[in-house]
């Protein structure tokens, strides 16, 4: 009997056990995909820019376009001072993009003998996206206080508001600031989770219809067409969510650089 469970893709399996200070830090399929994303990005970027050609080839063009794309994103939302965070935003963007793209493989056998793994999307786990967003918020708060000191709190007291309104505005600003890591992480997590569940539910229909009998097999064309459409949509979402995460990071970093706005 074929497994059509759409939740199976999110399961985590231990590959190599590791325990430090009583914490289970086992190397899992999730860690493997993180490592895969890092290695693939580094390798591709290094290979693409290996020639250092004055007139770039296809690979180098893509690397340069990615560089320019993220640099422009940082510059336009956090100004030229924001460029000090360019390596961080670039790493964040490329890591999420690579993790999302590797998640698009419906089946990904691991190069480990005896272990047969399903596809896995790193960013479909709330703990991963939450860690990434907490990383961003730590940098925003840490750098904001380091650079502006007490003036960082001006973020919660927007200029040009009548003093009486601060009673309402300041709590709103505080709540909005505190909800940032949640919205940032849940947006990415929910998009990846929902998209992949939908994809596997429709893919499951094809299998179930195929198993139901000769006549039902023809009806299976409908969910198959749906899966094709959804796959295209998921590729868009995979890119878009990486972009959204990076641009929101830039906007939050801008607050750390210029809290008076």
């Amino acid at each position: 009997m074929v497994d059509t469970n759409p939740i199976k893709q999110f399961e985590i399996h231990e590959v190599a056990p590791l325990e430090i200070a009583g914490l289970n830090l086992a190397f899992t399929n999730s860690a493997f995909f993180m490592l895969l994303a890092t290695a693939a990005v580094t390798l591709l970027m290094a290979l693409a820019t290996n020639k250092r050609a004055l007139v770039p080839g296809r690979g180098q063009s893509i690397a340069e376009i990615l560089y320019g794309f993220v640099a422009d994103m940082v510059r336009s939302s956090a100004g030229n001072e924001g460029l000090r965070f360019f390596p961080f935003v670039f790493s964040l963007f490329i890591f999420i993009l690579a993790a999302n793209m590797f998640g698009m493989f419906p089946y990904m056998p691991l190069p480990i003998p005896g272990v047969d793994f399903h596809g896995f999307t790193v960013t479909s786990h709330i703990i991963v996206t939450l860690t990434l967003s907490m990383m961003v918020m730590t940098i925003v708060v840490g750098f904001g206080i380091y650079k502006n000191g007490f003036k960082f709190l001006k973020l919660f007291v927007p200029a040009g508001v009548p003093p009486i309104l601060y009673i309402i505005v300041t709590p709103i600003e505080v709540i909005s600031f505190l909800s940032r890591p949640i919205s940032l992480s849940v947006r990415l997590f929910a998009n990846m989770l929902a998209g992949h569940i939908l994809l596997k539910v429709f893919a499951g229909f094809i299998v179930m219809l195929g198993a139901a009998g000769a006549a039902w097999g023809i009806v299976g064309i409908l969910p198959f067409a749906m899966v094709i459409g959804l796959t295209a949509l998921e590729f868009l979402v995979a890119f878009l969510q990486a972009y959204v995460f990076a641009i929101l990071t830039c906007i939050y970093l801008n607050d750390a650089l210029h809290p008076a706005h």
Partner: protein
Amino acid sequence: MTLIALINMAVTAAQEAGGGEHEASGAFPPFDPTYFASQIFWLLVTFAALYLLMSRWILPRIGGIIEERRDRIADDLDTAQQISSEADETRSAYEQALADARARAHNLAAEAKAAMDQEIADETAEVDAEIAAKSAEAENKLADARTKALAEVRGIAASAATEAVNLIGGLTVTEKDADEAIKALESRQEKSV
């Protein structure tokens, strides 16, 4: 209708299939805290590695390539500008030389014309002087000839008168006498005039 039936079928199948799993792991995998620590740990490790590789190696390299290209283009544009200005200079120098040569040629022509005019004027003056000298000489000669002729005429008149007197009057008159008589006549004529 078929679609709704299909969705129902899938949901029940998923629940049945997932049922066993849920009992084993205890929760929906993304919310299962068993591997939270592991995921955080490996995310930090891999992301730190990626950050270091990007910020120390890949990004400076791409930045360097882009910078190099920009510099090269700027250099090439500078060189082109330089060559263009050199060409402009050369052209203006050529035009200057041409204008100089024209001016010089003009001057030479004017000088030659002036020299020629001077020569013509000199020669004309010389020839005029010569003509004047020759004419004066001729006039002198004419005057001498006339004087001489007049003197001769007087002599002829005297001898003729002598002869006439001798023939008619039988008188012997010397030429000296005749000459004196003519002179007397002339002076009388002059007085009457």
